[in-house]
């Protein structure tokens, strides 16, 4: 585990960087990249709590992301409700969904959890695609409303999105940091390594897996809300898609599963790669970026199962020995 001092200095540095970067570089494409980077780092960190720390792999986080996105957008669209309330509702609904998925499966050994998350996410996508109130497969557009904080709509600047996400990113990072060195964090790691020994130490493993999942779901839903409000259009095939679920996991794996800085490292590489390949390769619409993603996952898994963090650790260990 990283020392608190080390963490604080790196954390401070990262925050300052994100604080000033969009003020210096006014290029909107770059600003967009920064926002995506913050969003996906936060998402992946939220996933990391259950998938990395507690070792319960969820391949269905898109359901929470989508729930959050719809909860912010649909009431705004239909009733003009401020998305901040929608966001809170989304967070709560996601937590309830986490209980419904987790309750039957966390008592079981083996791959039941993976299958359940994967399958439930697909079902949720189908349900939204058939739900008239949210315009089914067509999805929702943000209504033309007065811009400002009440509606969390800004038509001429990206900065409010950037700084709101930055605050949220900081909160989630801080929670993850505190959690890692709290009793809960130790319990998560114990559940991942030796569930039976953890039980013998008095850990209610079912309950703690559930905690991890609920917290993770909540943060993921908030990210979903922010995403919807930022891109202004959501539909089941994007916000509830398997692609989102995969991307979240991939970033964590690429950076290093269960490590505090893994998500940021992974997101930096993947999101830059993705955004620039989108710009350079253009909208072929034939999923070249996904081909690259798929190949990347296989290659990382086969050659460096510990991710970039593992690579750095191995490298620094070699250097110390030499």
């Amino acid at each position, binding site marked *: 585990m990283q020392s608190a001092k080390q963490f604080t200095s790196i954390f401070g540095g990262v925050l300052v960087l994100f604080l000033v970067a969009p003020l210096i570089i006014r290029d909107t494409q770059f600003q967009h990249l920064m926002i995506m980077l913050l969003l996906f780092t936060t998402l992946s960190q939220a996933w990391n709590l259950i998938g990395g720390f507690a070792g319960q792999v969820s391949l269905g986080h898109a359901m929470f992301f989508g729930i959050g996105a719809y909860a912010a957008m649909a009431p705004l669209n239909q009733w003009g409700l401020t998305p901040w309330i929608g966001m809170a509702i989304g967070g709560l609904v996601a937590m309830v969904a986490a209980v419904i998925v987790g309750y039957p499966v966390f008592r079981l050994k083996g791959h039941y959890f993976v299958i359940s998350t994967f399958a439930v996410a697909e079902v949720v996508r189908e349900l939204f695609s058939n739900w008239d109130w949210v315009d089914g497969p067509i999805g929702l557009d943000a209504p033309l409303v007065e811009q400002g904080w009440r509606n969390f709509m800004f038509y001429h600047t990206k900065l409010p999105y950037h700084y709101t996400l930055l605050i949220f990113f900081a909160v989630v990072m801080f929670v993850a940091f505190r959690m890692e060195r709290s009793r809960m964090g130790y319990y998560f790691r114990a559940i991942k390594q030796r569930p039976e020994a953890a039980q013998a130490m008095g850990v209610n493993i079912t309950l703690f897996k559930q905690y991890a999942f609920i917290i993770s779901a909540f943060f993921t839903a908030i990210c979903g809300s922010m995403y919807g409000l930022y891109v202004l259009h959501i539909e089941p095939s994007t916000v509830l898609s398997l692609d989102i679920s995969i991307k979240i*996991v991939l970033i964590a794996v690429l950076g290093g599963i269960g490590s505090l800085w893994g998500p940021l490292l992974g997101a930096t590489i993947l999101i830059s790669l993705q955004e620039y390949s989108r710009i350079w390769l253009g909208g072929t619409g034939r999923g070249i970026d996904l081909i690259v993603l798929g190949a990347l*996952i296989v290659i990382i898994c086969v050659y460096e199962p510990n991710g970039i963090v593992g690579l750095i650790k191995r490298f620094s260990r070699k250097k110390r020995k030499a």
Partner: protein
Amino acid sequence: MDLTIFLQLIISGLLIGFVFSLIAVGLSLIWGVMDILNFAHGEFLMLAMFTSFFLFAQLGIDPLYSLPIVVIVLYFIGAGTYRFVIKPLLGYTVLIALLATFGLSILIRNLVLFFVGPNYRVINESILAGKTFSIGGLYFSVPQSVAALLCILVTYGIYLLLTKSKFGRALRATSLDKDTAMLMGINTNRIFEITFGIGAACVGVAGGLLVNFYAVFPEVGLNFTVLAFVIVALGGFGNNGGAFLAGILVGLVTTMGGFFIGPEYKYTLVFLLYLVVITIRPKGLFGW
């Protein structure tokens, strides 16, 4: 409610159920021996369907005749996947292998999408396609009936292979205790590779038959992967007989549910069934 319609639904549920069964048995085989969730299973199915489709469209070989070719191709795809993707990961946690096959599924799906585009393709005029026969006022689709029949036969063949052959004994020994099996002189690496090959060959059979009555498109595998996982979990892990029966059950549920509640909810129903079953019977319907 008209009895004929009800019987008709049961028939089509059963017919598609047998195909589900074979796909699930292929997955269950790999799962049981290696404890690996192969997320590319549905993509293997998609590859089988496309192989069959293009052999028909380009070379005019009827899907029924090209079935052996498809099966062989899929065997090598499965064995190759094991050799290049799974084998290097055997010492690591199950999660890594799971993610690797997950990555593989994205790769395969999008490669196919890139080369052939997203369109749906249908075979209308093969030996089997589009034909029906009737018994006592009930209609049977010929391609579905043939598919069901062959799937039952292949599943039975796999059952015989596992229980009666020398390979089957070695495979069962390996799945019980890999290290001991190795000490006994069983080449577990070879066993794993063959198992992966056979698992893929199962979807080869299923895919080669499905193409006669099911549209082919790059994303066709996705639903089948979800279904196959749920079926295997329903039946009980590593229990091939359970997977077979659960496949039939899921076939009935999708068909009946699709008719009575609406086709858009048929997978929702299957998943609800899965949640209810594992809540009541944590080791699946036929596990213990």
